[in-house]
């Protein structure tokens, strides 16, 4: 393979972000547009001030041209994340969050922070969540088995982050398992 080693292990965060941007988000358009066909499907029509659902990449593009307001997903609010953070720090297992919350929240906080309530607080909460979850993943390392690994509710970005070394570590553990008397019995 001609890919550089760093790309062979797993996909990169920007690639995950690209994938996440296919998801739909609600916007309030500021321009009108007829229903338009894209490769991934037809979106529109945009009729201000009615809400419309379009992919995130398109919303980002329109937002940058100041042609829409993005409506934050229900989970991207201070109350919701605060509640999740409390759950995260009090329970032993991972709390359920949208699978691509890391990517989407980052993109929206980047381009549409003026459409979100209290973006700074959101950033802090997301960071705290990330750290709390990282600590749990780390604790999971101590009980790593060679054959199975159960970490439910882990998000795409987190899976991607731990994938290379978890796989390698599990492979090593697999190698260290004894293979009992095939045909040679020894010493």
């Amino acid at each position: 393979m001609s890919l550089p080693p760093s790309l062979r292990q797993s996909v990169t965060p920007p690639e995950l972000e690209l994938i996440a941007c296919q998801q739909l988000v609600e916007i309030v358009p500021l321009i009108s547009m007829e229903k338009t066909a894209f490769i991934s499907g037809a979106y529109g029509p945009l009729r201000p001030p009615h809400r419309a659902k379009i992919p995130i990449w398109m919303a980002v593009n329109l937002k940058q041209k100041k042609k829409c307001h993005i409506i934050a997903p229900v989970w991207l609010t201070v109350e919701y994340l605060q509640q999740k953070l409390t759950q995260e720090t009090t329970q032993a297992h991972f709390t359920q969050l949208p699978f691509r919350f890391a990517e989407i929240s980052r993109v929206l906080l980047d381009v549409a922070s003026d459409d979100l309530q209290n973006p700074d607080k959101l950033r802090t909460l997301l960071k705290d969540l990330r750290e709390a979850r990282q600590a749990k993943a780390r604790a999971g390392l101590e009980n790593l088995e060679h054959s199975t690994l159960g970490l439910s509710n882990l998000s795409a970005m987190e899976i991607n982050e731990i994938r290379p070394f978890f796989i390698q570590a599990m492979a090593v553990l697999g190698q260290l398992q004894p293979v009992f008397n095939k045909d040679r019995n020894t010493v």
Partner: protein
Amino acid sequence: MEEDYFSIDAILAENQKIACRFTIDIPDMGHLGGGGERDITRASTLQLPVWLVYTIVLSNWADMIMPPAFGSKVRNALKAEPCSVRLASLVGAGGLWYGFGKTILEMLADEGKQEMSNLLTNTFRKRLVEVIDQAQHFAALGPAGGVGPTGDSAQSFREGLDATERELFALAQEGSKRMKRWYEESDKPRR
């Protein structure tokens, strides 16, 4: 560590000598030991390369003596505190302690196998967390950061990493760096 014929790591891991005590006399083979004697006598001990040990041990011509890298002294030290043992320095150049252990593992009888496997697995698992912690720490330091976690123990732990652990260290560090880069880019507005 895998058994692939072309695996460089597997070849390097077997680049070791194991002491064996002969159980029979072998005439005219004294030159193998590099000494002046004509015959290999019963109960004499020779350092043999791993590839030869396989045959000799399996044919019951000699008993393998557990190499010092897995001897009781090291075992006790590992039981006490896995992170304070410098695995790399136990097995010489390349530092493939786990690979060598795997080689030995295959030559043991079943009960010995389980014990050996437990020793290797427990050591690996206990050290893994520290490996990843330090890797993430170094990734967080960025390109400029030269000084690692303070204290001699962390430093000496890093120096004593087995080649397998070193690989994991690099993987974890690379992954954390990528994540950090991605999160930090997000601080700038995109235009």
